[in-house]
């Protein structure tokens, strides 16, 4: 608990500081140490700790990382040949990423929503015409990169972006590709 919290009325103290942290679960300790080395070299403030009791998978250590930057961190670990078994919020290790998609057909255009991210495609030309929603700062940048690109040539938001919004946009894009390939 920080000094800031001690100065606050008890009822208004912030939630546990784990709310913006995530955990990376690996098969064995060697992978944990390798991931810690890779991520620290990339400038991320990561630490190693024992896993929360709810977790049944992996070894007896996990890497704690800034949850918001999940997309970039997973890409970096995959590029390093050391992907985790699982990434989850430290505050709720059993929480799962959104798997519910909503679609809206405007006639010529189709929109897919995943969590707070929406992507819209011209069904005739298969060009991405709009990206909407989201709140992390890579969203406006990703929107600019994706808008106007053919669906099949658009780079993965998960690889281009850094945050959980980028990850959600990646899911929406994949679902759009699946729907448009039918």
């Amino acid at each position, binding site marked *: 608990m920080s000094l800031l919290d001690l100065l606050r009325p008890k009822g208004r103290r912030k939630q546990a500081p784990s709310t913006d942290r995530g955990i990376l679960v690996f098969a064995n300790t060697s992978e944990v140490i390798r991931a810690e080395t890779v991520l620290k070299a990339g400038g991320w403030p990561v630490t190693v700790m024992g896993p929360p009791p709810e977790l049944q998978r992996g070894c007896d250590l996990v890497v704690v990382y800034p949850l918001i930057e999940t997309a970039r961190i997973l890409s970096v670990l995959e590029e390093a040949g050391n992907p985790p078994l699982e990434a989850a919020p430290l505050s709720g290790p059993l929480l799962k990423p959104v798997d519910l998609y909503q679609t809206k057909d405007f006639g010529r255009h189709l929109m897919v929503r995943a969590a707070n991210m929406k992507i819209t495609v011209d069904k005739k030309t298969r060009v991405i015409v709009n990206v909407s929603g989201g709140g992390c700062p890579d969203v406006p940048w990703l929107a600019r990169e994706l808008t106007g690109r053919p669906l099949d040539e658009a780079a993965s938001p998960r690889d281009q972006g*850094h945050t959980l919004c980028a990850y959600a946009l990646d899911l929406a894009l994949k679902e759009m590709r699946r729907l448009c390939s039918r």
Partner: protein
Amino acid sequence: MLAVIGTLPEPGAPLLTGPAAWDGGPLSVAGTAVDVARGTPALLAAASATALALGRSAPHAVLAGDIGRGDGSRAVYAHLVETLPASPFSVLAFHYLQPDVDWHNKVLFTVQAMRPKPLLLADAGFMYAAKMSGQAPEYDLFTPDAGELAFLADETAPHPFYARGFLLSQENRVPELIRRAHVHDNAARHLLVKGVTDHVARGGEILGSVDAPSESALEAMGGTGDTLTGVTAALIEAGWDIPRACLAGARVNRVAGALLRPTPASQVRELIAHIPEALETVLREEGL
């Protein structure tokens, strides 16, 4: 004075602060041209158009380049902690910033020491951090869309990406989600929920809703939520009480959308061009 605090989608762009004036072209922030596509520049352009039409001074922008690495957001946070105590702002609108609970708390603590304390509005990433910090009730207004309302209503979710499906699928149960967010202290005092129908709530209860004019294509257009927050923030700065500003802001955004006659491929800068005319229409409706 209104301060709009957010980021630019330009990697490495340095801290940029100053008045934001918009005259239909690029946004001018302290003399620097900023492209208005979506995100905080879209919010600023809408707020600037509204403020100038009301005869108010242009909003003050605090921006830095950030594409998700958090570097620009941290520069903005550090600037706020240093400068807010001596600032003249009466309304602070926080927007696309990297959600970071520690920095959020430093900024909020700084704001709470300001006299008089400014009104606090949060949207996008800073709203996520405010909810995660457990201090959402300290805010005067949050402006979530449907997916973000599900996140506020889910007391376990640290980000909309983890909002549980049974909440995400309840688009027609907005009143229940608003109450749930309020009961768990994950809502600001007021909520402006953006959607097919825009709802304005205080203390967990809906005070009013706006559903006309309706252009379904606006749901696909990136940045329409940003412009709604911008118009509303400028009305609040002009002295309108928060529920009235939210309801009028929703009307302005919708009238601007109707004037545009949009398709799902329309871009938000086209909508912003219609805000002055839409504002004039709504002010007439308000008898002003």
